């Protein structure tokens, strides 16, 4: 059995409780024991690093130091924003020991940072450390028939130099995972576009505009639902969807799942464990597609190809 350090972040204990719960279910099935960091603190999120550089480093650094005491070689984080802050801090501390020393001295009494623990998002951990084969092996009730637009948001794979994971512009790891669960990932161009993030609170209209575009493109791709691995993405796309529909006078009706909710379903957990009641957009319409047999039409030969062939004759 694998062991991994778990940093839930504040959302997991609040708005994205269903993410937290399903992560735990999924990891149990995948034979991964999660050890939550005792006495973890806020990652600083967007507020700290726009106000004070030292604070922006110190908050995640304390978590990194606490994580080292657990002696697991990897820490996994469901929230994309927490992941980003932890990963950036780790990268900067590792490349600049003087900076690391300076910041470390501000978190008195917690021990010294050694840079021993790798930081991975939940998505990256599932994709790299668990692997597609292991995931596939645990699927008992495939979610085939569902067409899903995988939405990564802006932080899970960026910046490339720091995350060192998947593509910053057109990532495919989540697509591969949902296909391992039996679903079909659609060709979705807006998988790394900005959803508007925390403007949801300060300037909601920005989110309606940006998330609206994402919903539009997801619908265009033929998806029954959107899959995310970030609490804020989920909340913007799901919670703001009725406002977006109202503003643009269009009906999307696109449920927004956490990746782990779908994994848990495919692993055979009962539907009532997924906390679907917390979703604003009802998920039943999307789940109804499970079991549908979809046949892809064969792409017709393009005129040009035909012409080129006849010319070559």
């Amino acid at each position, binding site marked *: 059995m694998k062991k991994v350090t778990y940093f839930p972040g504040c959302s997991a204990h609040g708005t994205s409780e269903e993410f937290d719960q399903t992560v735990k279910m999924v990891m149990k099935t995948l034979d991964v024991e999660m050890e939550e960091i005792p006495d973890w603190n806020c990652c600083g999120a967007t507020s700290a690093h726009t106000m004070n550089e030292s604070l922006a480093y110190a908050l995640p650094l304390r978590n990194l130091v606490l994580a080292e005491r657990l002696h697991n070689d990897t820490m996994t984080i469901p929230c994309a924003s927490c992941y980003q802050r932890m990963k950036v801090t780790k990268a900067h501390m590792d490349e600049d020991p003087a900076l690391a020393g300076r910041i470390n001295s501000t978190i008195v009494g917690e021990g010294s940072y050694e840079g021993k623990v790798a930081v991975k998002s939940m998505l990256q951990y599932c994709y790299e450390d668990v692997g597609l084969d292991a995931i596939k092996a645990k699927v008992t009730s495939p979610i085939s028939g569902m067409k899903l637009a995988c939405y990564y948001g802006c932080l899970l794979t960026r910046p490339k130099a720091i995350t060192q994971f998947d593509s910053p512009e*057109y990532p495919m790891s989540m697509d591969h995972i949902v296909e391992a669960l039996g679903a079909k990932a659609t060709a979705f161009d807006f998988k790394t576009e900005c959803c508007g993030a925390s403007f949801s609170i300060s300037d909601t209209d920005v989110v309606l505009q940006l998330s609206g575009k994402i919903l539009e493109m997801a619908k265009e791709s033929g998806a029954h639902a959107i899959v995310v691995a970030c609490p804020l993405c989920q909340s913007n796309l799901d919670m703001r969807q009725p406002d977006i529909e109202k503003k643009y006078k269009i009906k999307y009706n696109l449920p927004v799942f956490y990746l782990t909710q779908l994994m848990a379903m495919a692993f055979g957990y009962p539907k009532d464990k997924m906390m679907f009641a917390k979703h604003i957009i009802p998920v039943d319409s999307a789940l109804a597609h499970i079991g549908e047999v979809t046949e892809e039409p064969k792409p017709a030969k393009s005129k*040009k190809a035909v*012409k080129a062939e006849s010319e*070559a004759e």
Partner: protein
Amino acid sequence: MARVGVFVCFCGANIADFVDVKAVIEEAKTIKEVKYAIDYKYMCSDPGQQMIRDAIVQYRLTSIVVAACSPRMHEKTFRKALSDAGMNPYLLEVANIREHSSWVHQKDKKAATEKAGDLVRMAVAKSIANEQLHEISVPVTKRALVIGGGIAGIQAALDIADARIPVTLVERSPSIGGRMAQLDETFPTLDCSQCILTPKMVDVASHPYIELIPYSEVIELDGYVGNYKAKIRKKASYVNFKTCTGCGTCWQKCPVKVPNEFNCGIDNRKAIYTPFPQAVPNKPVIDAEHCTMLLKGKCGICAKFCEKGSIDFKMQDEVIEREIGAVVVATGYDLWDARPYEEYGVGRYKDIINSLEFERMVSANGPTGGVPVRPSDGKVPKTVVFIKCIGSRDEAKGIEYCSKICCMYTAKHAVLLHHKVHDSRAYIFYMDIRAAGKGYEEFVKRAQVETGAIYLRGRVSKIYQKGEKLMVRGEDAQLGQEVEVEADLVVLATAIIPYKSNPALARLLGISYDKYGYLSEAHPKLRPVETAKAGIFLAGCTQAPKDIPETVAQASACAAKVCGLFAGDTLKKDPMISTVNREFCSGCQNCVKVCPYQAIVTEDIPLGHGAKEMRTVAKINEGVCQGCGSCVAICRSMAISLAGFTDPQIINEIVAI
């Protein structure tokens, strides 16, 4: 008693700002053999050289030390000054106080000055032991080898051959013509590329002084300037060119389809093919990687239909040798693969193409008959977005340099699009418009005014598909706005890169290349067509991105250099070569093994005066020896000495510091 003159150069501010030149002079004057020491702003200038010439006569100097830039830069200049004053030129020593001191110690003037003083003292000490040396004459083979049959190679070959010097032109593909043959019309005059190129291609084939060897590659080059020996591998064409009439029956009957490289894979060619109808030589070759007969031993349809019996499946690669005196390298360029631009969906969307693909489409002899079409559905595009600087000037994803020609050909594409599809509209995203060249700026204006092409200054951040359209989202930096264009077709002006094989070729030829793989010229300003290796010259995009006029000018410059090299019957060669003292030579032959130029042979001489017994000693071939000194270092009995770098000279230098 030696009488040494010391001349210290300011090199403008290059030396004088970081080295106290006066202090160096004062230090030189303390050496007892130094009879004259003076500084000057530019020692290499005519007044500077005159100072040296005058001092030689006036102070009866026996050797000269010039403390200035690297000897690679001006050693020749100063040697000539010595000659002009009636002094043996090899009595010169150059103390390199620029590259070796002022440039590298800019932050510490005191240390730089001390080091410059040391370098001068060493040079003075060495020069005292200098001997009079005389240039060696070596015979020259008056034949040039041109590698690459694009417009650069063609122009160089024709110019050299017109001077009645035989040329061997080696081309790796089945036809000469290169990239220019793929182009439709050329900027800024819009004259047809084929119309101006194909006559030159025919001239090459029919020129009495040009030997054209297509479908072959240079695999070895030995020797030295004036006396190179090249090995060329002729790839098996499986077609007897002597009997083949080029009738075309074979490729009409061949059942194997292969993506057509000449048309950027837009259509197919056959396994037996000529690259394009105007190919020179206009004879087909069989592509061994795709021919069913060669792969599986079945088919042979081409042989059945060939009336002349020209198909020979048993043909083998052949290696031929040519003795040549000079080489012109003109291997051309390739295009950067734009797939790292994932946000554009390169590789995912069929309707994103590169400029060369667009060029083939609008070309009258192209795969779509001169009309641009969307690869996805064959429809004629009405709105075309051109994006410049794809990979160029992009440190994050591509390369740092500017590919130079994209601004102009994109303007040309806007004009051509307008000519071919009258109701179309071109949108051009650009960073800067670089249109320096005769008639270039006017041409860009023409594209803007005449065709209504909309130039948008800004980068494209994303391309995504919406229905049949490609949505191109970018920035119009001049209006400070985000713009989105609904495009039918997107054309990427991808960066120019050197051929992947350039580094391997450079190593084979013994010349240098830069971090991108471009072959390096000897001096960026003053020796732009020569390489650091004598007798090897560069033309076209193998050295850096350039357009057709520039390429042709450089190719003609190469021809002038080759003709100059071949003007006399012999070449002068530096006398800095090794000699063997037979008295000391033990015949161990270690020197034979270490010589990188195969310049050392052995000979048998009598053991003693009038003795019958023989012993073996080393012998240096004067023409081949390059004076590298490897043999001197390996010689255990200290029998070999290198002129200009003798033991007394080196020991003097060491003692001086």
